């Protein structure tokens, strides 16, 4: 039997040496002994600076030995593991995970970029939702651009500096 969608709630924030991660299960492949999960991650700057990069992608974990695959950020993987009728609820869980990460880490600068180049407007919806959510969390979008060299979209958010009277 192939992959079976079996959504679960986001897990608590995991603090790694170079990132913060919130995972939630999308489902399981019983025959292959795998759990498929959505991971929302806030990467630390290994250069020691303040900026963090926000990303979300799908990973596959071996249930027996726990080994985790690299991230898949492409649309094809989403289509494979998230049924069309479930995309909205998965998007809401991604936003809840973003909220958990941002609230816990409180980064001053957050960058975000698309994995794929030349994304058409319908495919930008999830990024727009994250942008709106960053606004709700008190962040200001100070830059948005589609880069002329790689045709990917880039966003930059920051916490506005409050000047005491």
């Amino acid at each position, binding site marked *: 039997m192939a992959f079976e969608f079996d959504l679960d709630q986001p897990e608590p924030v995991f603090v790694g040496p170079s990132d913060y991660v919130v995972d939630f299960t999308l489902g*399981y492949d019983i025959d292959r002994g795998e759990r498929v999960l959505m991971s929302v991650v806030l990467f630390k700057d290994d250069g020691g600076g303040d900026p963090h990069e926000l990303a979300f992608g799908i990973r596959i974990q071996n249930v027996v030995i726990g080994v985790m695959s690299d991230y898949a950020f492409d649309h094809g993987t989403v289509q494979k593991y998230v049924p069309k009728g479930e995309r909205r609820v998965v998007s809401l869980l991604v936003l809840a995970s973003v909220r958990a990460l941002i609230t816990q880490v409180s980064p001053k600068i957050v960058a975000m970029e698309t994995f794929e180049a030349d994304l058409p407007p319908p495919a930008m919806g999830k990024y727009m939702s994250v942008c709106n959510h960053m606004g709700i969390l008190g962040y200001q979008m100070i830059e948005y651009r589609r880069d002329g060299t790689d045709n990917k979209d880039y966003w930059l958010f920051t916490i506005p500096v409050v000047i005491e009277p």
Partner: protein
Amino acid sequence: MTKKEIVAFTKRIAARLSRGEVSARPISEKARLRFRELARQREQEKHEDRRLRA
């Protein structure tokens, strides 16, 4: 922080991703139990299917 520094930062992250340097926690007990439960259900279904075909 300058635009150049931000670009350098995102490139460093991209390089880390391409090297597979992303943290992973051990699988949770809840997920492990759910997997076992689903596996048990699938086995039961297969068994039932074989019984009906016999």
